């Protein structure tokens, strides 16, 4: 009997079993050690004896398939798996600390604290979705945090991997998951839409900021199905001081139609990171739920909803990139900036849900003390924001898709790189500095960005026909163009 081997002191494939640290309905967790592995380890062992829930086995199989393929800071590292022939197990990194479940007694939490937590979880989801996996059980008890602050998602037993068989697909008649957080489309058997995770995170944000679960605590299928037509009370109804930007974010996550939610977790993380730039719509101020007419139309047109084509996680993410354009706003940059606009338009035209973040770096001198005002007493920071808005106006993007950012930094390239990393930017578009004197003095920002960025970088040079900003630079300019046909893509 396989289960008998699980006791303290026993050895399994080189892992020495320590104490049992948890016993749940589907699995037990054991502390284990292995020579040569320094990080603390946990062995997860499914309950598979007679009469156990068959879901325990299937969800364990899913975790066994998915966890070893995942990487990055947002998941526990996997150190080994064992199959059902002998003793099924998964050995993973033990994340210290508690899950978010421990915070339930303290709800509601301050708005800004929830904003920060939500931003970390959204970044973790972005990392997971990029690996073609949908978690499908986002809830407080599946979220932990590393000491450095990154959110770690645990429990992949209900997850869906775009490139692996979905063993949960036909196993159960009822959707498997945690009722208060489950997205409405899950009730219709949809398991391949990453925006289901954004709904769950929205339910968590709602709960953590109001102390109330948006869809109550119902566990029945009938009760859960109500969310297919009935929207929750707007948080402002429960808490009059609820910030409009936060209600905008939360209610957008909780939209019944996945297409009305954020297109990607990265875009949600972006809004949580820049609350002052959240585009407020009618959602932000609502005090009441949808009218009964709307609700009844939804309810009795359920059958009329056309079947959704199978979604492709990777394609969906690719159609919704965060594009950052780094602009130099100094003298003589007009021609270059016009070319950058052309290139950015081309990128945006193929990505209907892309977001555009326009970034300018306000360079600080190491010794500068008063840096916010120039001689005229004008606020440089505000001037630059206005200039960025002006540059972006021809795109005619809906406001929610455009943000402008002035970064203050000593090293512009480092500031752009950090902005890209923190905001999960997919594509940086940057101009190559043409002024040889400045480039000689300052080094090439675009070269450093192109060399070190965590994402795609397009380095733009003005077209050959554009008028020269400075005749002295003609030779330098030609040399640059000779080397790389504009625009060059790295």
């Amino acid at each position, binding site marked *: 009997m396989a289960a008998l081997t699980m006791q303290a002191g026993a050895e399994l494939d080189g892992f020495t079993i320590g104490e049992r640290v948890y016993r749940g309905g589907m699995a037990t967790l054991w502390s284990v050690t292995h020579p040569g592995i320094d990080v603390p380890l946990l062995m997860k062992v499914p309950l598979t004896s007679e009469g156990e829930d*068959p879901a325990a*086995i299937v969800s364990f199989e899913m975790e066994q*398939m998915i966890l070893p393929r995942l990487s990055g800071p947002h998941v526990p590292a996997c150190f080994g798996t064992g*199959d059902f022939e002998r003793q099924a197990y998964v050995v993973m990194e033990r994340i210290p600390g508690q899950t978010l479940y421990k915070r339930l007694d303290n709800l509601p939490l301050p708005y800004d604290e929830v904003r920060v937590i939500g931003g970390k979880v959204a970044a973790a989801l972005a990392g997971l979705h990029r690996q073609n996996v949908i978690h499908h059980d986002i809830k407080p008890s599946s979220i932990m945090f590393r000491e450095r602050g990154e959110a770690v998602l645990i429990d992949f037993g209900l997850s869906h991997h775009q490139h*692996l068989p979905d*063993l949960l697909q*036909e*196993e159960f008649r009822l959707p498997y998951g945690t009722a208060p957080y489950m997205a409405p489309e899950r009730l219709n058997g949809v398991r391949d839409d990453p925006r289901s995770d954004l709904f769950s995170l929205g339910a968590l944000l709602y709960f953590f900021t109001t102390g109330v679960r948006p869809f109550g605590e119902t566990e029945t299928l009938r009760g859960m199905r109500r969310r297919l037509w009935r929207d929750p009370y707007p948080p402002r109804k429960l808490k009059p001081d609820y910030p409009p930007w936060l209600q905008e974010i939360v209610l957008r996550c909780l939209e019944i139609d996945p297409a009305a939610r954020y297109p990607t977790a990265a875009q949600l993380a972006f809004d949580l990171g820049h609350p002052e730039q959240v585009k407020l719509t009618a959602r932000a101020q609502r005090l009441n739920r949808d009218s009964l007419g709307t609700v009844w139309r939804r309810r009795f047109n359920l059958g009329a909803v056309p079947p959704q084509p199978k979604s492709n996680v990777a394609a969906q993410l690719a159609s919704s990139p965060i594009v950052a354009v780094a602009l130099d706003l100094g003298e003589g940059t007009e021609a270059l900036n016009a070319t950058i606009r052309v290139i950015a338009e081309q990128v945006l035209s193929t990505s209907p849900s892309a977001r555009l973040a326009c970034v300018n770096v306000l360079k600080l001198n190491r010794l500068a003390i008063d840096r916010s005002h120039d001689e005229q007493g004008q606020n440089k920071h505000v001037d630059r924001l206005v200039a960025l808005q002006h540059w972006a106006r021809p795109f005619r993007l809906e406001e929610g898709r455009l943000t402008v950012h002035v970064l203050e930094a000593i090293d512009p390239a480092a500031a752009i790189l950090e902005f890209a990393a923190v905001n999960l930017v997919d594509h940086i578009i940057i101009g190559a500095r043409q002024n040889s004197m400045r480039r000689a003095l300052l080094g090439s920002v675009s070269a450093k960005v192109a060399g070190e960025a965590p994402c795609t970088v397009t380095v733009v040079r003005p077209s050959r026909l554009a008028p020269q900003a400075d005749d002295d630079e003609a030779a330098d300019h030609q040399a640059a163009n000779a080397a790389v046909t504009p625009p060059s893509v790295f």
Partner: protein
Amino acid sequence: MRLALFADIHANRQAFAACLEAARTRGAERLICLGDIVGYGADPEWAVNTVMDLVAKGAIAVRGNHDNAIGTPSDSMNADAQAAIDWTRSRLSAEQKVFLAGLPILREEDNRLYVHSEASDPAKWRYVRDTSDAARSMMATGLQITFCGHIHRPGLYSMSSTAKMTSFVPTAGVAVQLLTGRRWLVVLGSVGQPRDGDPAASFAMFDTASREITYHRVPYDVATAAARIKAGGLPLWLADRLLIGR
């Protein structure tokens, strides 16, 4: 051991040669041919000789319905297929015909079953179209993994210990571990006449140690394969469909 599995070669020399090369570069140690070496394509002599040679060196091959129809005329084939079989028959030597007629219809190896169409009644040449077809085949064998072809579209089915079925269209190049807790039906795409919309040739590799199956797509010289079909006087649709993978 790394197995390379090929189904529905259909006398397509360019596609089969490309797949064999791709399998060699991936370290294939044992070759399995899942039937339909001939039919449709313009190079049956080369295809049969190549498989005969591989079998002499230890490869496994089973018989497909087109291989079968060379010696035992079928009354259930469509007109194009029938025309191609008659054309092919006239090209093959007596030795090649004996080889095709002598291929086994099923082969077992360890915990694996190799068959052209499916396992419940292999001589009936049924297609595995969905989970119920897959379940019927899986119920008919006690072996854990069945490999088959015949439908020219890749698919991967599993059956849990409680007889629940899953189906999956595999992604080329992504290894899937065939978990020991369930039974699996691995349906290969076609080497020589893909019908899933992708004209690239299809084969798979299976690692018996890690139990990982990886489906591969191999681009090959489709234009030459199609031109040879036209030049040989075979039905034109058999050439055109290669270009679109239908």
